[in-house]
């Protein structure tokens, strides 16, 4: 309320360039005092205020960092607006409404976007900054934060899938690449430095929380069966470091022992494979039967 009184009581008339009208705006002195009051109330959230405020123009104000210093300057100015706020600055004996800092209930292991913090604050970026400073959130990328899960071994980083869920805004995606291909048992053993992620939103190389993700916008089933990963491996045989002929032989042996579902494999090949890969799959199936 003091702030409103100050701004309204000491508003100055400013002509609008090119028009006959004038506008009432808060005076520079009012703005400086309000900035100082805000800083005194929450200095830990307002580390830049003395740099960004209009007080920058004055060497004397720039060097002001204490209540006593502010009071000294205000007394020197001797304006009526400063006298209104002096009791607050010096003795804190004015009635003010101070809201308690919000304490959001954050789920360990979950990744949050800044806008999700809007459920607990009208100013999500500021809340995020405070939670990072208290260690409750760990920044992963611009606008992306993780609530670390504590284990016996220390703070556990979030799962790749959880990072991608938040980053891609709950849109469908599938993580593929060397780990999934190697698990098929078809001879691939190479390990990539970054995860391969098919999705519907982004393409390119992204580093999130120190981890590298290669995002591609391509067609993929929302719940991919194992047979789809076989097709994916055949399509990326060169990257996996295995010859296609070697993969076809391994696939043929796996089909012979009933390792994969033939109908599903054919269906996945028809939908997601190139003509050359479809021919390779058909050849592997034929060899497995004979």
């Amino acid at each position, binding site marked *: 309320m003091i702030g409103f009184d100050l701004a309204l009581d000491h508003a100055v008339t400013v002509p609008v360039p090119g028009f006959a009208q004038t506008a009432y705006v808060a005076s520079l002195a009012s703005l400086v005092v309000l900035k100082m009051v805000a800083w005194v109330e929450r200095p830990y959230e307002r580390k830049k205020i003395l740099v960004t405020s209009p007080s920058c123009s004055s060497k004397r104000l720039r060097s002001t960092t204490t209540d006593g210093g502010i009071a000294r300057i205000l007394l020197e100015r001797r304006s009526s607006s400063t006298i209104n706020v002096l009791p607050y600055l010096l003795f804190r004996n004015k009635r003010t409404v101070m809201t308690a800092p919000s304490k959001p209930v954050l789920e360990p292991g979950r990744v949050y976007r800044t806008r999700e913090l809007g459920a607990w604050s009208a100013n999500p970026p500021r809340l995020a900054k405070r939670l990072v400073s208290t260690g409750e959130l760990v920044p992963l990328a611009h606008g992306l934060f993780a609530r670390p*899960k504590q*284990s016996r*071994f*220390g703070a556990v980083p979030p799962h790749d899938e959880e990072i991608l869920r938040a980053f891609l805004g709950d849109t469908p995606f599938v993580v593929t690449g060397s*780990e999934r291909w*190697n698990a098929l048992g078809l001879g691939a053993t190479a*390990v*990539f430095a*970054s995860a391969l992620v098919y999705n519907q939103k982004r393409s390119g190389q992204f580093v999130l929380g120190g981890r590298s993700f290669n995002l591609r916008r391509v067609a993929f089933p929302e719940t991919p069966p194992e047979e789809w990963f076989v097709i994916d491996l055949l399509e990326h045989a060169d990257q996996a470091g295995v010859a296609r002929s070697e993969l076809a032989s391994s696939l043929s042996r796996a089909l012979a022992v009933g390792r994969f579902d033939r109908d599903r494999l054919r269906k996945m090949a028809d939908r997601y494979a190139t003509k050359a890969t479809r021919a390779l799959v058909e050849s592997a199936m034929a060899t497995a039967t004979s």
Partner: protein
Amino acid sequence: MSLVHEDPEFDDVLRIVAANRRLTRGLVEKDYTLAISAVTGMTSR
């Protein structure tokens, strides 16, 4: 002898190491598997 991969929180260990060393979880797991194979191979001789 109790080994780390027998711990129910082994996956957490892999992710912590991967984050600290800036590697993928798969690389850390592969490194561990090779190392543990060498150690257990040596002890079984």
